[in-house]
């Protein structure tokens, strides 16, 4: 039996102790010795959220296939355990070996959303690792970050030794080989990092120097040594059918957020919605073959015993083998009493037919993402969906027996005006009217429309990366306008409206496009007690406002300012494969309310062609 880091009494004093004990089915178990690279893989949020993430599972499985690597997992301790660890001076430990994180060779942290940044500092702090990269000594783990937020790593630059830019399957082997060599030759930490920067996709922030002009805008961003590359290239998998295939997924004991097999259909997206970072940073669209996915689905269902399988991609309707794959899955899952969930499907007769076969219409709701209230604004954001598409799709669904509809919108999009805002309640009203046009005996009771809006946060590497944001009060005014307009409408009782937190939006805006000056703010907020900021009941905006004040950083510099197109942006040193000039053309098109065709309709020469893969090669 493994020895646990915490005593029974300690474990029983915290909520959900099974979060901290490891030992789940298929979790790795290796002996620690000096020749093995111990890699602690961390998702900086609670176990249930972290274990729902497929990326961690892919890398965990891939690393553990190597005999010379022991990959373990680590999640954020909840506040109760946080208090206990501090009080009793227990160093943070990984789940598998239950040994201190501080003694590992690598600490890998995935950056899935901006509001987890203070949790990263908690992990370092509780592990006894200095939070600043420059203060770490040779015996401490190399702290490496990756994931979507690493496309602008600058607000975290002080805390990480390396950022891995791109898909994890590509360069880790090279990094491990280098590490082994350096360890054998007793090469110092700094020298290892410098050598690591020579591997494509590795960004070592301490090897770059940033200078600012009097306005606080970057005037130069350069490596400090000649051998360190000026540009860091994003790494991608080019042959999706040869990519690592998980065959030992860890099956959690406790119920996690996504307790199901996730079938990743493809990476990237053809749509080019101008607000969507994923639509640009994961280009080009690369599909798995139907055969690969069938095989994968069966293997995973058999190994995990899962009760549900979910399709995952940015826009599953664009997967070219969808009907073939679904026919197969529906037959198999029907036989074995397994549920299928189908997120991100465009609502049309094909998808409605599929949903009817796999879901209980009375319980399920349909989801549309018009994103904006008017056609003009939908054109600005290049959302390839029209009012007719939405109403037509909804009518088909209503006639098919559905009566619950969810609609997702964004407020605060570039060029948004009062008509666009009021367009949200109007579209909802229109759907309700259309529903009640159906004869009473052909419809299924009352219609329930739920509209939710988030506030738009401009992201790096999108055509809106130059755009300004709004003040907190302005966001709220827009949400109130939607709410008040809804109240005046005839079908107000059929329509519910929810909107996101405006204070979190402003912070996300700062982190998404921040530079290295933001590091001090995150550190200060953590010192003042900020933690689990993505949890609405834990988030405390006052702490953050104090942190900005104490560090003298003006957050409106990041949110309210429209960037000039020739400005040096904090993330310009990363080459994601899509050219800045393309993003600029798209920004200009957006300002003229012009739509662009998707990748299958026409190639706009975005730059991703150079990867020589996927949709760019006609697949």
């Amino acid at each position, binding site marked *: *039996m493994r020895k646990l880091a915490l005593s029974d009494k300690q474990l*029983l004093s915290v909520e959900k102790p099974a979060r901290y004990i490891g*030992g789940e*089915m298929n979790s790795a178990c290796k002996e620690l010795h000096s020749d093995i690279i111990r890699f602690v893989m961390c998702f900086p949020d609670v176990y249930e959220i972290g274990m729902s993430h497929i990326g961690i599972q892919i890398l965990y499985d891939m690393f553990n296939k190597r005999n010379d690597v022991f990959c373990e997992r680590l999640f954020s301790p909840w506040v109760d355990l946080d208090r206990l660890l501090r009080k009793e001076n227990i160093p943070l430990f990984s789940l598998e070996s239950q040994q201190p994180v501080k003694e590992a060779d690598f600490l890998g942290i995935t950056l899935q959303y901006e509001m987890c940044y203070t949790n990263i500092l908690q992990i370092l702090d509780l592990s006894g690792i200095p939070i600043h990269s420059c203060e770490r000594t040779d015996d401490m783990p190399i702290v490496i970050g990756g994931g979507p937020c690493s496309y602008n790593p600058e607000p975290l630059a002080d805390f990480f030794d390396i950022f891995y830019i791109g898909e994890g399957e590509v360069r880790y082997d090279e990094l491990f080989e280098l590490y082994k060599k350096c360890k054998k030759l007793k090469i110092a930490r700094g020298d290892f990092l410098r050598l690591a920067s020579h591997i494509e996709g590795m960004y070592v922030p301490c090897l770059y120097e940033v200078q600012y002009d009097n306005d606080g805008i970057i005037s130069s961003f350069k490596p400090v040594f000649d051998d360190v590359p000026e540009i860091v290239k994003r790494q991608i998998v080019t042959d999706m059918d040869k990519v690592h295939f998980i065959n030992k997924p860890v099956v959690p*004991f406790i119920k996690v957020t996504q307790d199901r097999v996730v079938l990743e259909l493809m990476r990237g997206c053809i749509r080019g919605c101008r607000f969507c970072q994923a639509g640009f940073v994961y280009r080009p669209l690369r599909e798995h073959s139907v055969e690969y996915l069938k095989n994968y689905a069966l293997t995973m269902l058999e190994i995990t015993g899962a009760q549900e399988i979910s399709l995952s991609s940015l826009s599953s309707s664009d997967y070219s083998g969808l009907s073939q794959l679904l026919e197969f899955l529906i037959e198999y899952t029907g036989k074995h009493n397994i549920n299928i969930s189908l997120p991100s499907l465009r609502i049309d007769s094909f998808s409605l037919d599929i949903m009817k076969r796999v879901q209980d219409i009375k319980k399920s709701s349909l989801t549309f993402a018009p994103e904006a209230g008017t056609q003009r604004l939908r054109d600005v954001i290049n959302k390839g969906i029209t009012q007719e598409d939405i109403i037509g799709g909804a009518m088909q669904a209503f006639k098919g027996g559905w009566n619950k509809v969810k609609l997702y919108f964004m407020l605060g999009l570039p060029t948004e005006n009062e008509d666009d805002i009021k367009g949200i309640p109007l579209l909802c009203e229109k759907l309700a009217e259309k529903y009640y046009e159906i004869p009473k005996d052909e419809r299924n009771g009352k219609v329930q429309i739920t509209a939710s809006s988030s506030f738009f946060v401009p992201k790096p590497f999108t055509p809106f990366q130059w755009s300004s944001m709004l003040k907190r009060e302005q966001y709220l005014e827009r949400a109130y306008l939607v709410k008040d307009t809804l109240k005046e409408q005839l079908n107000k009782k059929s329509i519910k409206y929810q909107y996101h937190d405006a204070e979190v939006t402003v912070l996300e805006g700062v982190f998404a496009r921040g530079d290295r000056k933001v590091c001090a703010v995150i550190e200060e907020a953590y010192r003042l007690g900020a933690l689990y900021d993505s949890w609405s009941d834990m988030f405390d905006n006052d702490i953050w406002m104090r942190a900005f004040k104490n560090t003298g950083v003006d957050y409106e510099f990041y949110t309210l300012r429209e960037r000039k197109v020739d400005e040096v942006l904090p993330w310009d040193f990363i080459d994601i494969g899509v050219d800045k000039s393309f993003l600029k053309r798209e920004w200009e098109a957006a300002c003229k309310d012009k739509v662009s065709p998707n990748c299958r309709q026409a190639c706009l020469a975005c730059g991703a062609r150079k990867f020589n893969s996927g949709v760019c090669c006609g697949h």
Partner: protein
Amino acid sequence: MRFVGHLDIMRFFQKVMRKSNLPIKYSEGFSPHQIMSFAAPLGLGIEGLGEYMDIELYDEACAGLKSDEAVKILNENMCEGMEVLSFRQLKGPKKNAMSSVGLADYILLFNLSGINDEDNIQSNFSENDFRKYPELLMSNESLLIEKKSKDKVKVLDIMPFIRHIEYTRNTVVNKKSFYGDMIFMNITQGSTDNLKPELVLQALKKYGSMPDIKCSIIRTELYDEGHRSLEDYGEDIT
């Protein structure tokens, strides 16, 4: 495993059933679930050596399936810390495990250094001390214990729920050996008079002058009201 809650254990077994490909019955509807029920949920932090669950299988599909084969298949899909000991068929009038439970055996184990380690016994206390605690406890007329629920505190006399309690040493339960001093008890369990072993531990400290010594709690067997083991409800399929 003792830190995994009851609902999660159920989910774990649902997955084991799927992986084992046993022809378990499902409920009807769009999200069918397996017909499976546990005799009595085990409290968090408590180890179980004799737990029971009922499942329903399709007759035709499991024709020819023998008990020892089923045990083997299930254990091939198990994880460390969990083992299926027997697989038996219930005959006669249908009464599920949950409604049958009336009594349970628990042991309080004071040797915490590892189950098969005879050397490392908490040495500050003598055998006579341990012998004394249950005797002192049972010399009381009533055992009033504060029982905390969500926001209320209730005073409860647990004496009628303790059927038997005594000191014991070095014992074997379900092929597992336990060394050192322990207190064995048989207490009521189930939907009507459920007594949590933690309350007995509390009473041992309050009425049996037992000091605050670390111990682990293990449930070793479940019975019906007439002290018939649930194991005896079923028959091996051969």
